[in-house]
């Protein structure tokens, strides 16, 4: 059996969230690789939107460090401005959006602005960027995060990107038009959300990771799905493409 890194598995899990012909708000780092992988496998007609204004159908030929790197401009479908792509997002034309986070909570609210830890000075983080917009306006939100207890908290100390707020129908009550977190991909597991209460539920653990390990690294009593599964490992083909896209393993080692 081929060996792979957990990050490679996360990229594969991200790619599997993209269906063919979908419009994807791509983001950077692992989601970007996930988008490129999906394009080369099961979703060749997916369309990528980037908040800097780039719209892409042909995957970039080179590894990107930022979405504004010249290889992401070369042979792009369109280079527009931010309002163009944010407008498409607000209209409801984006099927799936990817973001990361420093903290996430039971109802999928994400914090990338300021961390308040007990008895310590608050830690200032970079902020939203476009994350709050994607979380507010995409039909489905996929969050990708390291699975650590200090990051998976009962309540985030600051809601940068709204998930399901306090659960239930909170999103429609505050006026958000649609969406909400659909899946959280971590380096240990995959979480989904209860359709009614909107609470996170452990739906899949990665091969070689125990359920107890996941629960021990989650800062609230995490519900476990009745039909808990094991995450499908990457195929040979998926690994070959990831390593072709990121030959030095900059994002995936």
């Amino acid at each position, binding site marked *: 059996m081929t060996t792979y890194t957990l990050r490679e598995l996360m990229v594969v899990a991200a790619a599997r969230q993209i269906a063919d012909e979908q419009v994807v708000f791509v983001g950077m780092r692992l989601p970007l690789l996930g988008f490129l992988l999906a394009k080369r496998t099961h979703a060749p007609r997916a369309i990528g939107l980037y908040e800097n204004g780039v719209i892409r159908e042909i995957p970039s030929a080179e590894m990107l460090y930022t979405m504004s790197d*010249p290889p992401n401009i070369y042979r792009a479908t369109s280079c527009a401005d931010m309002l163009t792509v944010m407008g498409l997002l607000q209209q409801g034309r984006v099927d799936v959006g990817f973001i990361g986070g420093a903290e996430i909570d039971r109802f999928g609210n994400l914090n990338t602005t300021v961390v308040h830890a007990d008895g310590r000075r608050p830690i200032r983080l970079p902020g939203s960027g476009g994350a709050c917009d994607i979380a507010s306006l995409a039909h489905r939100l996929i969050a990708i995060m390291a699975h650590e207890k200090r990051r998976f908290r009962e309540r985030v100390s600051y809601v940068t990107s*709204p998930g399901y707020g306090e659960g239930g129908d909170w999103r429609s009550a505050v006026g958000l038009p649609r969406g909400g977190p659909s899946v959280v991909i971590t380096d240990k597991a995959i979480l989904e959300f209860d359709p009614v209460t909107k609470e996170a539920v452990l739906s899949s653990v990665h091969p070689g990771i125990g359920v107890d390990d996941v629960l021990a690294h989650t800062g609230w009593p995490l519900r476990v799905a009745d039909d808990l599964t094991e995450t499908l490992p990457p195929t040979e083909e998926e690994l070959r493409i990831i390593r072709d896209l990121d030959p030095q393993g900059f994002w995936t080692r």
Partner: protein
Amino acid sequence: MPMGKRMTLTEAIERFVPDGASIVMGTAMEALIPFAAGHEIIRQKKRDLTLIGPISDILFDQLIGAGCVKKVVAAWVGNVSGGSAYNLRRAVEEGTPQPLEMEDHTNFTIALGLHAAALGVPYLPARTALGSDIQRGNDHLRSTICPYTGDRLIAVRAIEPDVAIVHVQRADEMGNCHLWGNLGVTIDAVRASRRVIITAEEIVPADVILSDPNRTLIPGFLVTAVVEQPWGAHPSPVVGYYNRDNDYFHEYHRETKTREQFHRWLQRWVLGVRDRSHYLERLGPDRCAALRPRRKAPSAPAEFGY
């Protein structure tokens, strides 16, 4: 005022960036960031500035660390390659070198605020950020109700900077600019601002600009000052001229973790250099050459004959 827009960067910053000014920069996201202009602002010891932008990569962090800034109006301040920006953290967490007021936005609300100003209206409605602490904590993102549908919306207040500083590929003497690649919020930022400083990789004859009016995204009559500044956006990329200097961003991350380290960094790259050509000497010709495009990829000409 038909003549006299061409000037040096030193003169443009001296004349049009007073202490206390609000400045929008980094309008094309990770590309075309006006680092040369930012460094000149630091050398001229401008104070009490308000910086406005969606994301700024490491330029805002440098100005904060140099003590030029009292307020930031932005969606994201950090190092795109490295994550945290240490001067931002020191200013917010410790008040070093001075306290910093943060007005947190999202990329979309920055874009809408500038667009509102560009349209000449006091605000624009949006559906983003509802229920978030960004909205709760920002008095310029107030809740409102749509008079037609009754929908709950946010009213993004217009953002009117004193100055926009924008880096472009090429401009003529009058400030008519050709720019390409991702545009971010550049066009709205120019229209929203009272004054506009253009730094351009090249100043070209007016006929070059006139040959392709659809690419003239900034008309010269909105421009206050035009500066020819090759490599003016390094280490950020300029499509067609140079690629992103990724190592530089990693080095900055490693070399600014403490205040003392940052002082050394600032001395080496900003305070200890006279101007951009001196900076490029420090960078060295080999490093510059390695950033140049490796392939030609011109667009097909558009026919404007009649």
